[in-house]
């Protein structure tokens, strides 16, 4: 018997089986197992090129069919109480369930066609609303806080700070790596100079946190003197150095050509 249908058309063994049942125009509840099994095996023979994984699924079904076929050939064991179960029953149940889902999927397809004609709109939240910031009620926020509590918290911070000072270790020098940006410092000093015109070296260094920062500041000052933007005066050795800023603008270090 020739089979003109392409194998690729079948989703799996159940699909193929349904096709054969349909083609032979037989009742799903009364499958002529022998006939269907033969046709089924014919199909499988044509599938040699298919991958092993796909083949195995079809082979499992083939084995099931042959199993049913052989059970049907054997006489059913005679039992008085139990009614003999048709060996095909399980297969019929599976086929019916599968057929039902196939049927529903067609129904769903129709529904999708209708639903796809409906168009939605992305959210469009007005600018005024996305910019909105909730007003914060300070009273509520501080409702549990009293001045006494705030005082306690501050006390404990001071204490913690003091606790951190180890009487022995605090005498050690500091080992730390701090990034001081030379070109930033260069500009900062000029900004300071622009604002104050004359200032003392000590004042300038007041906010310096580390030795490195003092060194970098000092280097910047030397450079600024070199390019004629600063003038310094010192009355006596070790006295504070008085600095006068001469320029009226700020230049970047790159322009100063270090």
């Amino acid at each position, binding site marked *: 018997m020739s089979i003109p249908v392409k194998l690729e058309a079948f*989703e*799996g*063994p*159940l*699909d193929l089986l349904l096709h054969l049942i349909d083609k032979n*125009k*037989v*009742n*799903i*509840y009364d499958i002529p197992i022998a006939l269907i099994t033969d046709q089924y095996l014919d199909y499988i023979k044509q599938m040699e090129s298919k991958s092993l*994984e*796909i083949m195995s*699924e079809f082979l499992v*079904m083939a084995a099931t069919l042959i199993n049913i076929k052989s059970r049907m050939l054997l006489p059913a064991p005679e039992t008085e109480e139990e009614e003999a179960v048709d060996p095909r029953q399980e297969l019929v149940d*599976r086929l*019916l*369930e*599968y*057929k*039902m*889902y*196939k*049927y*529903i*999927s*067609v*129904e*769903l*397809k129709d*529904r*999708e066609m*209708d*639903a*796809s*004609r*409906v*168009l*939605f*709109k*992305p*959210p*469009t*939240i*007005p600018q005024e*609303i996305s910019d909105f910031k909730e007003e914060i009620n300070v009273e509520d926020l501080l409702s549990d806080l009293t001045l006494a509590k705030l005082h306690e918290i501050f006390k404990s911070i001071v204490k913690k700070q003091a606790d951190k000072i180890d009487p022995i270790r605090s005498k050690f020098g500091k080992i730390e790596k701090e990034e001081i940006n030379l070109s930033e410092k260069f500009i900062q000093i000029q900004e300071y100079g622009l604002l104050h015109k004359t200032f003392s070296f000590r004042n300038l260094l007041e906010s310096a946190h580390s030795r490195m920062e003092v060194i970098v500041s000092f280097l910047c000052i030397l450079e600024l003197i070199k390019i004629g933007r600063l003038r310094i005066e010192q009355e006596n050795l070790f006295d504070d150095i008085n600095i006068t800023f001469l320029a009226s603008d700020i230049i970047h270090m790159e322009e100063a050509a270090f």
Partner: protein
Amino acid sequence: MELKMIEAQIEAILFTMGEAVEVDRIAAALDHDTDTIRKIIRNMMDQYEGEDRGIHIIELDGAFQMCTKPSMYETIIKITHVPKKHVLTDVLLETLSIIAYKQPITKLQIEQIRGVKSDHAVNKLVEYNLVCEMGRLDAPGRPILFGTTEEFLRSFGLQSLDSLPVLNPEKLEDFKLEAEEELQLKLDI
């Protein structure tokens, strides 16, 4: 008077949000109880069905969303390009219907019904946001359980999973009989 104001607020919310908004969330924003708001929205849905309206409200599993009416489709595609949605092959539709009816369901259970490996189909459905993971089955290997998404309901015009076609046993029985008759008919020929 007050009702009209609430209707206006609901319209503004659904328009701005664009997406499906849970009725609880709307009720909370409007400071009303959920049942009242749900009733008001359902009443609005009827009003929108009037012939001079091009948009309406749909219900999706306890959430509401504003969208155009299907009859407006032809007009809209004349003015703007409507992005083509992914095409669902028969395999995907078949797998999707199994998941829809049997959820939560594991991949293995799907494969048992279909009789074939279903990794690819399930992965594609997850990619299309029609199906999502819904936790794990308390069994050896703790396999992932799959179920359908809100996007599934939207894409198939379903209000909720209850509105899926033929699920109850009687209908299934009807369907079986129908199928039998069909087959019988063929045999008679």
